[in-house]
């Protein structure tokens, strides 16, 4: 078994009285792709936000390579460099060109050399088909292009684990594919990723392990082939049914 990279132990998270994550434990190994699925409001985004230290938690621990991720702690900026996060709404910085979006953190946070970072950024952009967009601004790009740029921005920090929160949910269908393809390639390269998605076919193809969350709890987890074919729990089966359609008119 590969080394344990991310450990979540008995995580509890609530917003005021609303308990959103209940005693959740999850270990992610190096090179593993974990896909998190579950109904809307079950706490998937909250889980990712906790992993990134964006939320204070009420109990439990999250550790990356043995170092605890704690909201408000001093070494959080250090740890966050190792965690790449991609948001549903891209969250590129509108006042910076694409290349500046990508190189800002490597330059200001990691204090790397400008030529080296720009070279890497351009080569990464090239690989996602955006080399000619480097000097443009986010508003000049399509949704799919923005999201690919956002992925490159996270990649350029050389993260150890990447978090994806429904990164195709805001995209038109024909743009979904181009973003998913980029993620598939990352998986192929052996990157550690935690992916929240509603794209079931994609989940099947990319996941090493599928986690089904409902009401802030992991209800079921397993290999994608087994999980999607024959989920063990009723709740997961009911959830997967949402994505199936049967003909409604009699056919002859």
């Amino acid at each position, binding site marked *: 078994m590969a080394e344990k990279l991310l450990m979540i132990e008995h995580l509890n998270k609530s917003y005021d009285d609303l308990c959103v994550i209940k005693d959740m434990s999850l270990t992610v190994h190096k090179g593993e792709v974990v896909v998190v699925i579950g109904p809307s409001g079950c706490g998937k985004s909250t889980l990712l*936000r906790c992993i*990134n230290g*964006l939320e204070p938690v009420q109990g439990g621990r999250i550790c990356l390579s043995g170092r605890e991720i704690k909201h408000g702690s001093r070494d959080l*900026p*250090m740890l*966050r*460099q190792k*965690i*790449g*996060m991609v*948001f549903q*709404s891209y*969250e590129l*910085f*509108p*006042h910076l*060109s694409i290349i500046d979006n990508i190189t*800002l*953190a490597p330059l*200001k*946070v*990691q204090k790397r050399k400008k030529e080296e970072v720009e070279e890497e950024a351009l080569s990464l952009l090239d690989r996602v088909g955006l080399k000619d967009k480097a000097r*443009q*601004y*986010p*508003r*000049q790009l399509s949704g799919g292009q923005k999201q690919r740029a956002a992925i490159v*921005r*996270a990649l350029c*920090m050389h993260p150890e684990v990447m978090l994806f929160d429904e990164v195709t949910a805001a995209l038109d269908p024909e743009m979904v594919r181009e973003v998913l393809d980029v993620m598939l390639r990352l998986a192929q390269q052996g990157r550690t990723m935690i992916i929240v998605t509603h794209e079931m076919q994609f989940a099947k193809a990319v996941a090493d392990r599928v986690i089904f969350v409902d009401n802030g709890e992991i209800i079921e987890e397993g290999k994608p082939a087994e999980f999607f074919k024959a989920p063990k729990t009723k709740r997961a089966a009911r959830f997967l049914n949402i994505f199936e359609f049967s003909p409604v008119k009699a056919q002859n």
Partner: protein
Amino acid sequence: MNIEYMLKYLPLYEKAAVLTVTIGAEGILIAAAVGLLCAVVQYNRVPVLRQIAAVYIELSRNTPLLIQLFFIYYGLPKIGISTNPSVCGAVGLGFLGGSYMAEAIRSGLESIEPIQSESALSLGLKPYQVMRYIILPQAVSISMPAFMANIIFLLKETSVFSAISLMDLMFTAKDLIGLYYKTTESLFLLVIFYLIILLPVSLLGRLVERRLRYAGFGS
């Protein structure tokens, strides 16, 4: 109207205009700095400083510039701080303008979605870096129209400087009227000079606003 009279006193007006613009610009710079400081302190909810900023803003917004100038001009020497009229003018204008600038920048700051900060934080930026590289640049461009409006407002407010015997445009006009009773000519020149100062600023403001509205970042 007596053209000869107007030409004769034109240099006086020119000198006064330079003074108005100089002290006005100084005051506006102070106002921008104070405003930025207050807005950042309030946006980040810095304890104590935040309350101080709130009190200052109310005080500054709800008292007339004339009274503020009197306090600085006559009050400060009483507690042993010597001043001269030009410093008083700039500081007074800065005191008044700081609160208006603070409100302008603060509304810009608040219009930026928190998830922008989170996205920057997730890249490992420290909070002050998020402020400096991500939030402030966006907030300042969003506040630009309000900022420009404040500049015009503050330049007009300089007309009360004459009360602390600064020889600004207003002072010059009043002085000449008192001396020669050429009211029409004096006021005409006064209006012309204010227009010469304010129209370009106003046009610039329009330009900035249009650029922001129709183009946004990256044009």
